[in-house]
């Protein structure tokens, strides 16, 4: 099972196992990882599932759609080059994910 490694704004790491096909957001919320709010439940409407993806894993991710790109301009903590909305990141078999959560989502 793929594992998502969440690092919070203080640097604490939490590893959560997820199911292939689930999003990073779902994996976080279902297990109560606090740094992700995800008000809209993954329908790309809220931008409260913002994460920073570890730079060296960025190129393994699918390209952003325009909607995600625009939504990222409204996150509570300003976007960086490695910002993504975690509801758009799906887990794949054999691929661990490394993401950091921002200080706040709202």
């Amino acid at each position: 099972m793929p594992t998502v490694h969440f690092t919070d704004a203080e640097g604490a790491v939490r590893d959560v196992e997820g199911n292939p096909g689930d999003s990073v957001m779902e994996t976080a919320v279902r297990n109560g990882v606090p740094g992700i709010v995800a008000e809209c439940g993954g329908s790309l409407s809220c931008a409260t599932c913002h994460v920073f993806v570890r730079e060296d894993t960025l190129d393994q991710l699918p390209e952003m759609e325009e909607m995600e790109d625009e939504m990222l301009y409204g996150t509570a903590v300003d976007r960086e080059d490695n910002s993504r909305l975690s509801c758009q990141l799906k887990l794949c078999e054999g691929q661990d994910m490394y993401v950091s959560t921002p200080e706040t989502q709202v």
Partner: protein
Amino acid sequence: MDTTTTTTAVPAETADGAVRTGLLIIGASQSGVQLAVSLRALGFDEHITLLGEEDHRPYQRPALSKEFLQGTVESESLIFRSNQYWEDHNVALVKGERIERIDKEADGSGVAHAASGAEFRFRRLALTVGARARRLQVPGADLAGVVYLRNADDALALKAQLGGVQDAVVIGGGFIGLEAASSLHKMGKNVTVLEYGPRLIGRAVGEETSEYFLTAHRGRGLDIRLNARIQELVPADGGGRVAGVGLEGGTVVPAQLVLVGIGVVPNTELGEQLGLEVDNGIVVDRHALASDGTTVAVGDVANMPNPLPGSPEGERIRLESVNNAIEHAKVAAYSLMGRREDYAGIPWFWSNQADLKLQIAGLTLGYDQTVVRRDEERGKFSVLYYRGGQIIAADCVNAPLDFMAVKNALAKGQNIPAEAAADPAVVLKTIATDG
């Protein structure tokens, strides 16, 4: 939403067989779940029972009319929290129990009686009982094939009937109706939307937005009839199944499925039985406390002071949205911890209909001016609402930058001057001004 049994932490039983619990939350949906989660995050250390009448683990409703209906998400991904989470946080989930009567003492403690005969004792009570679909009152409304869409069982029943359906009629051109209509159309059905009023989504958006959706949906293939007067639902020959919707004047719109989305009614019965003040919902103060000063009422069932900063004193509202359920529950959690936080925030809402992503920031209550921003080429459309020159809300279709700009400006108490905003090429974020 699956049928596997949930292992719930079993609360201690007293000699008389009643279950003892610290906080009893009645209604295990968006607001009940958030209340339990927020309380544990704040360090609430008493027992929590999260009880609901539905036979499913708590799940998110919004997808029922969208992705779940279309079959693009699994039921499992609608579940709020894993069983492990509830166990780890010492929250006892009780499914399939409907509370019918509550005996409550002056100190806020009491016993809730379920239809099954089970009893649930509590020291404090939270009512997160939400709302139910308003029923259609015309002859034939009880025919087979007439469905509603409020909960998972509704959605499952609807999906199970879709097989033989060619023509579907959606009664009600509000959010749920238009979302479901778009989903059914995408699944290849002929869909007619019958709206009683003169425009779509009339309760929640202004005229310009209604007009935009009317044109957009018609262009995408929905047959939308405004000012529709329904006389009866017509049965198929000799059967108890619906075959069409009869309108005044004699027209019958064929339908093997009729989906009714004409709004909701707040579940105030328990509040009334408890003697709480009720007026289009259970009346609460800024701290989510009901009129007895101890019971909290949260989410779709609560009639609350308008939380939008700067709204007139005494103005009240009942909101039906995920954002409200979440934020209101957070305030209620503080109240149960003995801390008084005011419910104040920028309400927001979303609705996805076909390829139209609507995001609404703020509340349009009392607006006196609108500004329309239209970018035909890129399919973007926004309406900004003003009250006395100050921006109070925006409806944004496929325009997340506008939505985010207005939401953030409202949160910071800023304005977005109407004159400058009228140019669709202007980036709203850059013209937000303080005070």
